[in-house]
């Protein structure tokens, strides 16, 4: 897994590539926690994300809860079919803001 961050205006765009599973989630959690110390609005770029398991969903849920508590905004885009399926099965599609494109997520 690789994580990289860029900013567009006041939005932090975090790209997560590879797999987000039990092995990589602790590192992802750490990186996202660091981003959250200074970011108010976060967009997650999943265009290079291969698959996500419940350990990864747990990290995303934590990010969503923290941003909601701090009044920040969260968006995500670029989900492949497998990631979308996991989101649908877990009900995350209806609780997390999933967008079709980066432009839409930033709008």
């Amino acid at each position: 897994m690789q994580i990289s961050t860029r900013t567009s205006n006041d939005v932090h765009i975090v790209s997560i590539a590879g797999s987000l599973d039990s092995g990589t989630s602790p590192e992802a959690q750490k990186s996202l926690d660091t981003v959250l110390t200074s970011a108010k609005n976060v967009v997650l770029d999943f265009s290079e994300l291969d698959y996500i398991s419940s350990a990864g969903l747990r990290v995303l849920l934590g990010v969503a809860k923290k941003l909601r508590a701090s009044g920040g905004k969260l968006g995500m885009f670029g989900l492949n079919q497998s990631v979308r399926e996991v989101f649908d099965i877990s009900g995350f599609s209806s609780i997390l803001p999933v967008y079709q494109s980066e432009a839409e997520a930033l709008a």
Partner: protein
Amino acid sequence: MRHGFRMSVGAQPGAVREVSAAFTELAEGHGLSADVRRSINVALDELLTNAHSHGQTGSDVDSMTVEVKLDQESVTVILTDDGMPFNPFGLDTPDTTLSVEERPIGGLGIHLVNQLMDQVSYERRDGHNVVVLVKQLVNG
């Protein structure tokens, strides 16, 4: 013709990565679709981590055997450990309709496995937990 692998992994965090790497190599060598490969990678992650966190009471699950078999129609994954009897599919289905605030963290892994695989089964056989997962290669 049948293909696959069988490996024993210990109860350490790197185990999932080891199994996942072996499976990915098999999947790519046989041209499995990305969808099937990803679903099985997710299932392996859920069940290998689940066994390590639930099987620990009394007798440690210090190793688990993972067997993957591939034929024309399907991929079969067989996970065997000698920990305390534990049926991972015997748990309640989590409420996936709760909001972000209400939702407890965790509890989703087995639900994902159930939904992503075409067949799942558990049996206690000769002092071992045996979990079998089947994923069809062709939908429909």
